[in-house]
């Protein structure tokens, strides 16, 4: 039962890719998208429910035993994350039908499924070389996704591509170094090697590998490609990339830290904490002098990544719970905020704060939703951001990391400042510039995804225990209690 559900999750994306490669009429596109997404969402939900009782599910293709074959593991945590990804993708997919900037829909949906397929592989694989292969597939499909716009984005795309390829090549270098020492590529063998040789050169090899994942996930020193590339494409693509790619990569860092017990390696942990704090700080500072809603939100993606990384670096169950909650909260809320800006761009043709004003008179619904998401991101009770930050600060205080606590609180204030800036300039304040002509009202395809995301956000705000219990159930080191 559980195994067949896992096969559905792995192979339905491949089926959809094949369907889009076949010549056919365009009217099949929307029903196929919605049915396929509904099926994978239900399958992931059922699998998640089944995994609460059972041990994590292992799939070895070709039945090769573990040190030789590549194993895929479905546990409570990564299936929960996949479930959230699918729900958010459902909303993005509904919006993409109404996205005016999106062109070449067939290649967008093809890349959409390729991305989902690669993300599934990225989260479930148990082998570092296989991880590298999935990262490359993610990169290839995000290149296609970025390209489905009418904007002229060649410079930002080249930046993105060069930095991503540099990251993957460094990752390959790290893998080669690890393989030289360990002689195996799967996570368990590496964990075993680290526990038997804790003071050898292996840590510098793993440091190289982890920092290459940092480049891919836009952590501090090499983060500036993200606010260039992400706003410079169609809105559906921005949402897809910010909610799936960066979040999946930052989650895989957790995998490495937990499975390989890298917390014993103090230099790496201290450097990473400093990088996480700088990421938070520079992300929010970059947002402060931007006057384009999408640019502001893209800088906030970076600062939120800093929060998640900080939660990853706190050892023990408190950090793990905080990290999972922050991650899921961020996926939902950031997509919601980007979607409000996407609706504005669809209707007004611009997201420059100087050119739009008094949106609250245009649509009360849109401004209410924006305010809900913005307050949630800034961390107001009773929304999900409050629980996420509370859990993170609690974990940091338990770990006696008071400098990080201070920086997190300051960054949180600046986040509120940015959100209020958008609210004041775009939604509330009147301006002298007169609007030219009537603006069309919002359509169902713009209401519906926003409502879905809002319900998801309110659900995890009101029932935070579901995620906390899942994290507690999985425990630290998750997946270890299975053969």
């Amino acid at each position, binding site marked *: 039962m559980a195994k067949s559900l896992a096969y559905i999750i792995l192979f339905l994306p491949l089926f959809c890719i094949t369907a889009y490669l076949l010549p056919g009429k365009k009217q099949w596109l929307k029903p196929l998208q919605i049915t396929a997404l509904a099926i994978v969402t239900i399958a992931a939900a059922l699998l998640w429910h089944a995994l609460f009782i059972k041990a994590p599910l292992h799939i070895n293709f070709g039945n090769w035993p573990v040190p030789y074959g590549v194993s895929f593991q479905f546990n409570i945590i990564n299936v929960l994350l996949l479930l959230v990804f699918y729900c958010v993708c459902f909303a993005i997919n509904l919006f993409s039908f109404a996205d005016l900037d999106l062109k070449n829909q067939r290649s967008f949906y093809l890349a959409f499924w390729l991305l989902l397929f690669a993300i599934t592989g990225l989260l479930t694989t148990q082998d570092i*070389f296989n991880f*590298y*292969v999935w990262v*490359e597939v993610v*990169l*290839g499909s995000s*290149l*296609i996704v970025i*390209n489905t716009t009418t904007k*002229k*984005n*060649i410079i930002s*795309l*080249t930046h993105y*591509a*060069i930095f991503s*390829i*540099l990251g993957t*090549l460094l990752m*390959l*270098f790290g*893998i*080669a*170094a690890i*393989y*030289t020492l360990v*002689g195996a590529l799967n996570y368990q063998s590496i964990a075993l090697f680290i526990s038997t040789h804790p003071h050898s050169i292996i840590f510098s090899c793993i440091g190289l590998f982890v920092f290459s994942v940092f480049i891919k996930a836009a952590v501090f020193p090499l983060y500036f490609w993200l606010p260039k590339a992400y706003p410079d494409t169609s809105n559906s693509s921005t949402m897809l990339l910010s909610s799936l790619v960066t979040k999946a990569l930052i989650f895989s860092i957790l995998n490495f830290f937990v499975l390989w017990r890298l917390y014993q390696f103090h230099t790496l942990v201290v450097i990473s904490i400093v990088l996480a704090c700088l990421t938070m700080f520079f992300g929010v500072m970059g947002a402060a002098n931007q006057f384009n809603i999408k640019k502001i939100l893209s800088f906030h993606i970076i600062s939120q990544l800093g929060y998640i990384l900080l939660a990853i670096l706190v050892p023990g169950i408190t950090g793990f719970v905080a990290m999972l909650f922050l991650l899921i909260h961020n996926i939902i809320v950031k997509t919601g905020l980007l979607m409000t800006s996407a609706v504005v761009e669809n209707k007004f043709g611009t997201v420059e704060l100087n050119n739009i004003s008094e949106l609250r008179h245009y649509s009360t619904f849109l401004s209410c939703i924006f305010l809900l998401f913005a307050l949630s991101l800034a961390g107001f009770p009773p929304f999900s951001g409050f629980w996420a930050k509370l859990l993170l600060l609690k974990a940091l205080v338990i770990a006696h990391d008071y400098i990080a606590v201070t920086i997190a609180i300051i960054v949180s204030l600046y986040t509120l400042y940015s959100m209020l800036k958008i609210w004041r300039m775009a939604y509330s304040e009147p301006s002298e510039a007169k609007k030219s002509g009537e603006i069309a009202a919002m359509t169902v395809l713009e209401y519906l995804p926003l409502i879905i995301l809002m319900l998801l956000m309110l659900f995890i705000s009101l029932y935070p225990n579901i995620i906390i219990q899942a994290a507690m159930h999985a425990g630290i080191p998750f997946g270890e209690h299975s053969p």
Partner: protein
Amino acid sequence: MMLACCILIAISLYLILENALIKKLLGVVLLGSTINLVIFISGLSKGKLPVFWQQSVDLQQYGNPLTQALILTAIVIGFSLFVLLTAVIKFLLKRKD
């Protein structure tokens, strides 16, 4: 061997930092090939003999053949990504006119 790799990596980083787009792309390709070479070396860390099994030779003396499979995968993926990247850039340049 390792020194050659270092020099190649230095050259490719220099090329990536150049302004011209074609030099950046060539730098990326060169870096990819160099790192494939590094993986190849990583297979020779214990034994160095090519794998033709003979009764008289100890198994420890053979080089690791798995790295060649890894390189093959890395070459295929790197090449396909490079082709995709150049196709996308060409497409965008065409749109600019």
